[in-house]
């Protein structure tokens, strides 16, 4: 029995029957073996009620206030065959993905028109206690178009388990370029699910920066296909996991064709009894010659009971390829701590400096100054003794 059974029983969807039969993934499902599903199973989930907001937002599985912008059109929800195939693959991934498909409340399809340049800022509004919202967003980025998509979460207090799920399909046509920033700072009882599928056409460029601080449980399944020659993807991420949080990112980059490049950088910082999982897979297919990939995964453990499950996977079947990878797990570097303390910084301040440094390597890459400031401010709030750095930034940054 999952906490979605009653809801699924009411849903008129072919996935629902299967979802009930399969149930929530157990520890035996490799990609879900670390996910603590107890709170998902124990809550009797119901459809959330939408909330009144003024911005472009996702609330209770519905998109509200879709902006009217030059170069952006809202398309009738007619899914293309290729998109449907990708959604089907996404739905079949695991038992929970079936639930996400079956309980989809709304679907928004947007097109960024040829050579247009569009910026979208999507706000995720927290759902009420014991309630959930499931939605799907499809964006087609036409040839030569540019999209900046920023997702951010409102910070509220919800006293019990709440859930939001977004499945997102992005399709980049030739020469299109997308900068995608996800800043997940959801409330401490939130369960946040993201399924992202990106297809990059010829000479297109996709850049994702994903930052996770919030939620009780977050799971992201990200798949990026480099499907056209000269396509490139860069994904970098940071998860700060504290208290009894669980953060899980399963990221796969697929070099479907040759002459494609990818870069994957991920950092986990885990404190308290937090647990973080990162699975980073790069696949370079047999005929995808002259491709290149760089992968770097770093994990910082701040307490004895913190856990991290990093798994880098490189699968290379082509022979003319450049690939580099590295994965580290460790605690704060003793020599660095000694250096800072020898300059008069207290143990607590020195530790805060090094934690900040670890996270900042990802955060400083965010180009949009407003969102970068927002992330940095919240980052310093996350760190014990982050005040000193906040004060320094305030006083000497010019």
């Amino acid at each position, binding site marked *: 029995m999952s906490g979605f059974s009653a809801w699924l029983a009411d849903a008129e969807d072919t996935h629902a029957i299967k979802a009930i039969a399969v149930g929530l993934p157990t520890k035996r499902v490799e990609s879900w073996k670390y996910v603590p599903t107890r709170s998902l199973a124990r809550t009797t989930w119901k459809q959330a009620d939408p909330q009144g907001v003024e911005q472009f937002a996702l609330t209770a599985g519905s998109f509200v206030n879709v902006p009217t912008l030059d170069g952006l059109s809202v398309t009738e929800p007619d899914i293309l065959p290729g998109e449907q195939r990708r959604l089907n693959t996404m739905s079949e991934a695991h038992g929970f993905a079936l639930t996400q498909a079956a309980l989809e409340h709304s679907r928004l399809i947007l097109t960024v028109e040829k050579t247009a340049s569009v910026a979208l800022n999507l706000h995720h509004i927290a759902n009420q206690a014991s309630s959930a919202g499931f939605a799907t967003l499809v964006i087609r980025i036409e040839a030569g178009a540019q999209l900046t998509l920023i997702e951010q979460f409102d910070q509220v207090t919800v006293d019990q388990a709440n859930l939001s799920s977004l499945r997102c399909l992005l399709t980049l046509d030739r020469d299109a370029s997308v900068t995608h920033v996800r800043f997940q700072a959801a409330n401490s009882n939130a369960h946040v699910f993201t399924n992202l599928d990106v297809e990059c056409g010829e000479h297109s460029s996709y850049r994702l920066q994903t930052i996770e601080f919030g939620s009780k449980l977050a799971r992201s399944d990200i798949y990026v296909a480099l499907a056209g020659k000269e396509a490139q993807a860069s994904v970098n991420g940071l998860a700060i996991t504290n208290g009894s949080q669980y953060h899980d990112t399963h990221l796969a980059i697929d070099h479907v064709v040759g002459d494609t490049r990818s870069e994957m950088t991920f950092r986990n910082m885990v404190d308290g009894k937090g647990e973080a999982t990162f699975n980073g897979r790069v696949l370079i297919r047999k005929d995808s010659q002259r491709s290149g990939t760089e992968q770097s995964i770093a994990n910082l453990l701040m307490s004895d009971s913190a856990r991290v499950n990093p798994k880098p996977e490189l699968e290379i079947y082509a022979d003319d390829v450049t690939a580099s990878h590295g994965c580290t797990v460790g605690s704060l570097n003793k020599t660095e701590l000694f*250096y800072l303390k020898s*300059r*008069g*910084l*207290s143990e607590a301040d020195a530790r805060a400096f090094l934690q*900040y*440094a670890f996270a900042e390597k990802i955060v400083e890459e965010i180009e949009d100054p407003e969102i970068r400031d927002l992330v940095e401010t919240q980052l310093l709030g996350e760190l014990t003794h982050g005040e000193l*750095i906040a004060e320094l930034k305030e006083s000497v940054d010019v």
Partner: protein
Amino acid sequence: MLSIRNLHARVGDKPILKGINLEIKTGEIHAIMGPNGSGKSTLSSVLAGRDEYEVTDGEVIYQGQNLLELEPEERAWAGVFLSFQYPVEIPGVKNIYLLKAAVNAVREHRGQPELKAGEFLKLVREKLKVMQMDEAFLHRNVNEGFSGGEKKRNEILQMQLLEPTLALLDETDSGLDVDALRIVGEGINQMRSPDRSVLLVTHYQRLLDVVKPDFVHVLAQGEIKLSGDHTLAQRLEREGYEGIEAA
């Protein structure tokens, strides 16, 4: 200022310092010279409080306090400064954050008022000029991508800002070209004061041509084998360490 008595220290099971005795009076500059592996860097690291080293015997009294009981940050607050042989890179932290945090932490513990942003910038610009460093250094990450010479200049810049009472300079001359050696040497000379003592650890004599020490000690096999005035450094340069070790 500093009394080192019968100091023994080891790393793991390996004894490195085997009974060091050294008196440094206020205002004096002492140079410790010696071959590689003699324990020079261990001595300065033990004095600054690096915890990889275990002190097995002896004591160090600094201005009447048992130095070995203090944490590294407490030593810094008390006026001890170590210039690292290999300054540590801290990607993600701007140099200016470390400099300002360090200056104000030390000031706070010395009962001095905190420097405001404007006062701090004025001070740091003055010191940058002495070290012939560009202001851009302030906004680069701590030592990240700095050349060997830039790192050492950054160490002396920190010393200038922190105004220690006891400066331990560990191989500050290594990796410097002629010009950088002169700048670093002048940076050290400028800090000479009747209230400040300096312990220079070096392998070569060349820094001692710029910064003239009051005393020179030869450290070999974990012990001070010979002490003298600055002319001892010249003798070592001519005769090498072998003769001393054999003696």
